[in-house]
């Protein structure tokens, strides 16, 4: 039954993004930046984990999850390795996602063409 929660929370987060678009007229790059920052903040104040506990994909799939894992990585890195961990931790934790986005973008850019509307 947790799928209902995933749907409701995920949908709600996305709806917040849409509200930002409608009421403040900002572009998608700014929305992504805003939500990444929200994710970093949630993690920094240790509230991401309890939300993630029952929201699962509802909070991990939105870009908030990406921001949270960046912050989580940096925090864990700082704890285990000290200063260098604060540098490396964030990207280490999210390297998979960034690399995947780059690799697939490259492959599909070679295969497909952008279509006119």
């Amino acid at each position: 039954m947790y799928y209902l929660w995933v749907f409701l929370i995920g949908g709600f987060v996305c709806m917040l993004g849409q509200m930002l678009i409608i009421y403040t007229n900002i572009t998608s790059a700014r929305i992504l930046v805003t939500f990444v920052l929200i994710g970093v903040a949630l993690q920094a104040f240790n509230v991401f984990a309890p939300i993630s506990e029952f929201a699962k994909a509802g909070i991990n799939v939105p870009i908030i999850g990406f921001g949270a894992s960046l912050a989580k990585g940096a925090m864990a890195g700082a704890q285990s390795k000290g200063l260098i961990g604060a540098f490396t931790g964030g990207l280490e934790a999210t390297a998979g996602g960034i690399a995947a986005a780059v690799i697939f973008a490259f492959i599909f850019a070679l295969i497909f063409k952008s279509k006119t509307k």
Partner: protein
Amino acid sequence: MDEKKRNEAYNRYVKAKIPKTKAWPSLFNSFLVGGIICCIGQGVNDLIMLWFPSMAEQTAWAYTLIVLIFIASFLTGIGVYDKIGKFAGGGSIVPITGFSNSITSPALEFKHEGIIYGIFVKMFTIAGPVIVTGVVASFVVGLIYLFI
């Protein structure tokens, strides 16, 4: 200044003149599509956990995101994602799939300028800020964490 006042008055007038569209339909669409994308993510995660029960939760999430990124990138390539985006707005921008779309779409768009100057250089024109803010903010958090 006279001109400044005129400009302000004109801006106010234009703002009032802009047709108001109903917000609810688009909010509902974004809710629906965003929720569905998250459910797909949850489904993928559950399947991974089902097939590889020994996998650490964090690794499973990483795979889940990679699968979603792959799907979004592919849908962008075949020209479907922007149609979803037109319908869903924030519903398809906020999930990680929107991040993938914002990397794949400029890569496709600037293909004609060559692989290095087109695809490589332009790939992060939209998503670059996301990575920069993420890295800087997480570093700051890590640094603060170091001292407390």
